[in-house]
């Protein structure tokens, strides 16, 4: 509370005395949900059937200084599927930052990412309930655009507490262009070191309190061609499962990421290869494998296309960076290819307004490895892929037909190794077709119709889904949708949803009622398990 008063006081002083007022902004987000019992899905409303989550943040920039704070309330606790650490309310994060010329210093809670995030990332994603900011000090210095050096240390935020461990690290990004002096060629490289210091009571003398993570990267751009490469190594560490430390045998880890692309006007193509072996890092050893992404220190997203349509989000891939002797898994290997092109307007395929096409292919396998269960050791091949975990081949076509009609057609063929990824069920092969129509009506009115079908003989069998959205004007809309697994003779369930939203400049209000399908909710390649439920949800978000 003292801190709040301090900020308040500070703001007030600046407010009254400053001639140049600087910039102040803030945001408020609030979600409320009321759970209802639901017999078709066997869902029983929790004791706290009404739950709400609130986030208020403000930031103020004045000359070289900026200040910020975030207040969070989970009343009486967070929604189902969020970490139980999130309950009650309090000042969650705050910071003071000083920036002058090439130097910046931040004290308090800060976010940061090194390289692609494989070695280190602290970020916030409210939908996933992730806020793994570091509480400590960060210093950044830019050497005339030749190099940028970052050094940081602190403890990681876990709910309303901070981690037992101390995290420290440094990063250097070099811009080698200045040395090559070429306009056509761009060359950059980067190096990071991030360590976690956590005391241990382990009997294993090889288990050190400091576990280091190292990343080296290079990035080259030449005309329309570009490529980048990153290698990450992690020191030998104990593992943990269900809050139990597994420290008899220690394992190091590594990751390889290679990306190459080419693009010119009207065409773009990109391919990524990645191999992961035991590369997940948590700020406390025992947090490994928790359901809520609590204490994650690095960013290991599933590299697949993030689909927009509900039926395409039943079988989603989550990256598999960890070791499991029980499941005989030690990582993943695979890749993804994307291609985008436009058929120009006034051509045969382009029609009057042009046609935009996106193709995507991704395929992910386990590492091919041999396990010695008695000794708890394994050997993995470098290139040879093991069992298929996931594959997705898809095409999306966007086309405007007339001034008032736009469509999106999407075709998706997905293979999902449910036994390996969810430890239950059967291997699924599904084909999904989506058609989306957007109509501009008279005045400011418009409507959208979405039709989807998923065809499979496996798992929950065939699904059909539809959505109708009507915009009365640019502020107010209503929608109704349903997902129905009509092909399943055991249990057919309508996952319906009706709702409305109201938007006025940067303020949004929404209200909905429906049945939520249980499953993975993935944002930015990171997933959270959302339990099946039924109820009313309301939200408000605004900025000022």
């Amino acid at each position: 509370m003292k801190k709040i008063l301090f900020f308040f006081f500070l703001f007030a002083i600046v407010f009254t005395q400053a001639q140049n007022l600087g910039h102040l902004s803030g945001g408020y987000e609030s979600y409320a949900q009321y759970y209802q019992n639901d017999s078709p899905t066997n869902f029983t409303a929790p004791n706290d059937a009404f739950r709400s989550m609130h986030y208020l943040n403000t930031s103020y920039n004045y000359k070289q200084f900026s200040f910020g704070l975030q207040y969070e309330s989970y009343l009486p606790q967070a929604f189902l599927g969020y970490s139980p650490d999130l309950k009650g309310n309090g000042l969650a994060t705050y910071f003071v930052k000083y920036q002058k010329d090439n130097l910046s210093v931040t004290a308090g809670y800060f976010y940061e990412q090194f390289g692609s995030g494989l070695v280190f990332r602290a970020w916030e994603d409210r939908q996933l309930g992730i806020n793994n900011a570091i509480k400590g000090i960060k210093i950044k210095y830019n050497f005339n655009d030749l190099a940028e050096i970052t050094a940081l240390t602190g403890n990681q935020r876990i709910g309303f507490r901070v981690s037992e461990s101390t995290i420290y690290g440094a990063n250097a990004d070099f811009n080698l262009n200045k040395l090559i002096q070429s306009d056509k060629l761009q060359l950059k490289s980067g190096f990071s070191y991030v360590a976690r210091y956590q005391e241990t009571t382990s009997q294993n003398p090889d288990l050190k309190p400091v576990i280091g993570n190292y990343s080296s990267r290079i990035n080259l751009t030449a005309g329309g061609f570009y490529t980048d490469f990153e290698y990450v190594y992690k020191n030998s560490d104990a593992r943990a499962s269900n809050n139990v430390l597994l420290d008899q045998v220690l394992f190091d880890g590594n990751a390889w990421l290679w990306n190459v692309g080419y693009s010119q006007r009207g065409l773009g193509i990109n391919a990524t290869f990645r191999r992961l072996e035991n590369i997940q890092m948590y700020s406390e050893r025992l947090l490994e494998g928790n359901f809520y992404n609590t204490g994650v220190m690095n960013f290991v997203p599933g590299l697949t296309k993030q689909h927009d349509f509900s039926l395409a989000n039943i079988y989603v891939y989550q990256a598999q960076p960890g070791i499991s002797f029980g499941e005989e898994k030690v990582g993943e290997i695979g890749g993804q290819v994307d291609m985008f092109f436009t058929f120009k307007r006034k051509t045969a395929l382009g029609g009057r307004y042009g046609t935009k096409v996106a193709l995507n292919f991704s395929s992910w396998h386990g590492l091919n490895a041999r396990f010695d269960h008695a000794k708890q050791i394994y050997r993995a091949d470098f290139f040879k892929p093991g069992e298929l975990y996931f594959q997705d081949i898809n095409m999306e076509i966007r086309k405007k037909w007339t001034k008032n009609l736009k469509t999106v057609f999407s075709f998706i063929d997905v293979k999902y190794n449910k036994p390996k990824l969810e430890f239950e069920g059967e291997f699924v092969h599904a084909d999904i077709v989506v058609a989306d129509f957007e109509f501009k009506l008279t005045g400011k009115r418009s409507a959208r119709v979405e039709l989807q079908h998923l065809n499979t003989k496996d798992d929950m069998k065939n699904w059909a889904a539809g959505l109708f959205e009507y915009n009365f004007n640019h502020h107010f809309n209503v929608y109704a949708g349903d997902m129905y697994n009509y092909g399943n003779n055991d249990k057919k369930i309508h996952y319906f949803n009706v709702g409305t939203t109201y938007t006025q400049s940067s303020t949004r209000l929404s209200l909905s009622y429906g049945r939520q399908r249980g499953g993975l909710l993935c944002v930015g390649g990171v997933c959270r398990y959302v339990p099946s439920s039924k109820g009313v949800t309301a939200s408000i978000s605004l900025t000022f």
Partner: protein
Amino acid sequence: MKKFILLFGLFTMFSMSAQDIPDAQLTDLKGNKVSFKEIVKSDKPVIVSFWATWCVPCMNELDAISEVYPDWQDETGVKLIAISQDDDRTARRIIPLVNGKDWDYEIYRDYNFELKRVFNIASIPFMLIIKDGKIVAKRSGYTPGSEDEIYEIIKN
């Protein structure tokens, strides 16, 4: 809680007064670091669009504007700066997608959401409209045809 309500009221009053443009570091598509404050400097109107390759309404909005963009530029000299909120899962799609779509915008990446936090943006699409170095409008969301309203703001 009372203090917060008070604080909230104060901020609202404050934020209605003329404000400077805050700064944050962005990266261009070649990975060079640029200052947000520098790139929005212009004596003509500037539209700043927060978008991502995975955000359908964002794409719809930017596709819709791209059809009328040459006319807007002729009439008002406006420039549109599209700031990607893609993280490293999807960031590699930005260049091929922008080229594949044949967009004419200035594109930057908001590495680890620094600028998004400066403006406390909860969800995208989100748009800022800047005239004479001041933020004159903020918009959240997109519905078909709402680009006409943006044109009304920049035209006047």
